[in-house]
């Protein structure tokens, strides 16, 4: 007998609704559902990305039993042993070095909001530290920090469906066709409905291709461009002065700082003609309502928070807040990276962005959880290597790392350094669904259920709480993430237990005023509830757009302007490393590929070792042909990948998708961080390119590397072969 289960797609923050079609306990296909954001459409990941649940063992293998490293080798054990061992080791380390010697992660992927809430509660209440963070740190942390400062709320102010009804879209450092096809659909629709589109991106992206204006700026020059646009809007008298006077602070200072950022001044920084910048600023300022969308091309720079504040300032200058189809849209990458932040898997706040340094908030959580909570902000994710490798005082060092649903051994910058840190840590716990590179360094492996095997709530990129539902029974000796964390917590002496995810959600709501009204019943009834939603009654249906009427989320209701000096990227190309490298996304793959790398048709379309996009001129200069294997070197590492000549990139610039294990571009990237958000500069580092004369040898190297990865990941049968 077949059944259909309605759920939320586990890839990207678009929050698409789909039905999983289940026969004989197995998922056989998916069907698009009429969700708020996807309206009966899915991209390739939504259509075919559920396949990893059938464990075809293409890249890695599903974890099915707890494991403990004994004499250097991971051995399967029973749950009791794994839980007690984990609790004992964590307690020992806590006793010896203090609670701040332990770090934990949240999970922006399949686990769901409830598991994240339980994890941050565990770290804060059971371990006693605010050392919890998750991969929002390596993506939209600058948006959260920047918008929190500017507007008082770090999320998208606009809703995904509203995008198609705006009059002008300014898309900067964001390639929705690759990262959110279902958001790209709204942009295509906006264009069809007559909206003007301005794109600022060093590459000709799909959006740039259909844009009215493409500002093909030099990588790393975002702030100069954004402030020059502000300069033009002020100089040409296009400021919405009433909005600025009534709703903002800091305008005079902003005006002073951007004064020198004339289009002529930034011409040489941005590699754009001054007149083009003027025209873009005029178009943006005169649009009846305009929205700004951005992604990693803004965030993954050493100067990211400043650019976010700069973009918010543009919207403030022109009064583009207060109604639908306007404002700002930092479009969150992973399916639940918004949720990880919402639930407080961050070193500085509890659920609903309540600061750990705020005495009233902390006392509320202390009372509810019956324990004293730490007052100081914790360590951000990207500072983990520093706190393991560089800090000398044993009491201030990190000694243990509880990694829940993340793979820092693949996703973080400068992987050599990260791996060294994982080696040096006294104790590493890995809780995941698939074996991954972090697992190779783990002392304990706790196998969890995956999306499709458990219930919960995800937060879409535009603040929408939506249900995920269990469709199939997990195969193996698995537990849900929140159950595992509760067991470890209880074994450590801080008992936690819940009957189901609803019970966790209700506890979270009771402590989080801005989410209080989003009950399971309401989410069930409406399909989606966008926060803030403060009242439990059905009258409060949530909030499609933020800052209604120009009332901002700061206590005084005002927004803040901000401008500062532009800084060049941290590592500039030179004679030895003459090309720049930026990491980008592969549309059919996701994150570290433990999920999509184990989906048959998605790997048929693209597989290891991935590509490096280069201009045809550079290819000609280096005598490189399409598909040829090439060596890419930076000061930190060296990897092999395939050459993809494309007219869509400028000479001197190269792009690699970060999903690959063999062509792993994070072996090359630089751990140069934004000083406020600690986000790495994945979009800019210097590399050189080395032609490989013996292509047959190179092909064999790639094939052998793939085989060895599969063997390391525990895949027993090598006979399946890999099509590379």
């Amino acid at each position: 007998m077949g059944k259909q289960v309605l759920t939320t797609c586990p890839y990207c923050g678009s929050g698409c609704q789909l039905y999983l079609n289940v026969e004989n306990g197995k998922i056989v296909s998916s069907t698009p559902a009429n969700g708020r954001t996807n309206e009966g459409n899915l991209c390739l990941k939504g259509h075919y990305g559920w396949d990893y649940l059938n464990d075809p063992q293409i890249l890695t293998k599903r974890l099915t039993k707890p494991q403990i490293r004994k004499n250097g080798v991971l051995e399967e054990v029973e749950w009791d042993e794994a839980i007690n061992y984990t609790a004992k080791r964590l307690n020992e380390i806590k006793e010896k070095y203090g609670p701040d010697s332990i770090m934990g992660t949240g999970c922006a992927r399949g686990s769901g909001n409830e598991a994240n809430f339980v994890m941050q509660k565990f770290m804060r209440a059971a371990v006693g530290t605010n050392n919890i963070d998750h991969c929002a740190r390596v993506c939209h942390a600058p948006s959260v920090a920047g918008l929190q400062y500017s507007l008082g709320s770090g999320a998208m102010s606009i809703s995904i469906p509203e995008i198609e009804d705006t009059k002008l879209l300014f898309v900067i450092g964001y390639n929705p066709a690759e990262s959110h096809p279902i958001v790209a659909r709204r942009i295509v629709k906006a264009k069809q409905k007559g909206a003007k589109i301005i794109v600022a991106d060093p590459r000709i992206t799909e959006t740039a291709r259909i844009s009215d204006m493409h500002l093909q700026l030099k990588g790393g020059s975002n702030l100069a461009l954004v402030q020059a646009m502000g300069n033009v809007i002020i100089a040409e008298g296009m400021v919405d002065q009433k909005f600025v006077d009534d709703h903002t602070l800091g305008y005079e200072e902003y005006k002073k700082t951007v004064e020198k950022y004339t289009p002529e001044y930034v011409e040489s920084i941005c590699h754009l003609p001054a007149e083009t910048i003027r025209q873009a600023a005029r178009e943006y300022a005169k649009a009846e309502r305009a929205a700004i969308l951005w992604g990693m091309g803004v965030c993954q720079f050493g100067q990211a928070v400043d650019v976010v504040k700069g973009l918010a300032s543009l919207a403030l200058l022109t009064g583009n807040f207060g109604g639908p189809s306007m404002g700002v849209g930092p479009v969150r990458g992973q399916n639940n990276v918004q949720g990880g932040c919402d639930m407080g898997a961050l070193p500085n706040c509890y659920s609903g962005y309540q600061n750990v340094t705020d005495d009233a908030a902390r006392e509320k959580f202390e009372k509810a959880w019956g324990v004293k909570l730490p007052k100081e902000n914790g360590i951000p994710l990207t500072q983990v290597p520093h706190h393991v490798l560089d800090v000398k005082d044993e009491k201030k060092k990190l000694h243990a790392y509880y990694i829940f649903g993340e793979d820092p051994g693949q996703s973080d910058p400068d992987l050599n350094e990260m791996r060294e840190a994982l080696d040096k840590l006294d104790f590493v716990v890995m809780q995941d669904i698939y074996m991954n590179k972090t697992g190779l360094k783990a002392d304990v492996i706790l196998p969890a259920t995956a999306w499709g095997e458990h219930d919960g709530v995800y937060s879409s990129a535009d603040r929408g709480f939506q249900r995920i539902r269990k469709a199939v029974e997990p195969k193996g000796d698995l537990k849900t993430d929140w159950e595992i964390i509760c067991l470890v917590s209880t074994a450590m002496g801080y008992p936690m237990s819940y009957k189901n995810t609803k019970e966790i959600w209700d506890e979270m709501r009771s402590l989080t005023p801005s989410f209080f009204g989003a009950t399971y019943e309401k989410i069930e009834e409406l399909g989606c509830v966008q926060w803030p939603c403060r009242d439990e009654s059905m009258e409060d249906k949530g909030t499609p757009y933020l800052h209604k009427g120009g009332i901002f989320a700061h206590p005084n209701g005002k927004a803040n302007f901000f401008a500062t000096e532009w800084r060049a990227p941290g590592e500039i190309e030179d004679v030895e490393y003459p090309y720049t490298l930026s990491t980008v996304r592969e549309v059919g793959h996701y994150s570290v590929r433990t999920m999509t790398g184990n989906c048959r048709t998605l790997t048929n379309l693209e597989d290891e070792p991935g590509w490096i996009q280069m201009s045809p001129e550079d290819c000609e200069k280096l005598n490189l042909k399409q598909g040829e294997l090439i060596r890419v070197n930076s000061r930190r590492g060296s990897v092999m990948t395939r050459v993809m000549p494309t007219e869509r990139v400028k000479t001197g610039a190269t792009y690699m998708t970060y999903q690959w294990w063999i062509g792993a571009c994070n072996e090359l990237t630089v751990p140069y961080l934004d000083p406020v958000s600690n986000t790495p500069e994945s979009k800019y580092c210097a590399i050189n390119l080395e032609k490989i004369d013996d292509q047959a040898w190179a092909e064999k190297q790639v094939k052998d590397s793939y085989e060895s990865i599969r063997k390391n990941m525990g895949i027993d049968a090598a006979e399946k072969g890999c099509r590379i």
Partner: protein
Amino acid sequence: MNYFVKGNPDLCIGCRTCMIGCVVAHEGVKIFQMKPGEYVFNPKLDIIKTATITMPVQCKHCENPACMNVCAVGAIQMIDNAVMVLQDKCIGCKTCMIACPYGAINMVVSSDGKKQLDGSERVVANKCDLCTGIDGGPACIRVCPTAALKLVTEEDVETSVSNKRTAAAISLAQVKEY
């Protein structure tokens, strides 16, 4: 008149969902239960990207098909408004692939599992068949998230021609005799 699927570069975002949709429609959802090397992955359309264009390219189902005219063994035939490759008859001579001006034909390992007499793989011509015989019609159209693909039928062409002629009449009427 033969039908054909037309891609719209103003709507296409190059995500290639259509290419997988094509394979799944032709091979069936059974591939999700098979070992990764045991089925063939032969999309019958391709997404082409230049500096300014992104769009799917596939068989136009020509009225006077070059591929059909050059096929020496009659493996390409016009059946029910579509130009079809009969893979059973195909000898893999590649002449149709060379003849097609749209590059809509490529050579692939046959998906029916049939082998040559010596047990080696059969290589045959592969091209869009408009999902003839598949429920719901062309899969590429059905799965596309931006509605960038459209089936063009005789009626569409007639309406389009008739609309264009009306528009032409209106504009021509404004031109004075000279």
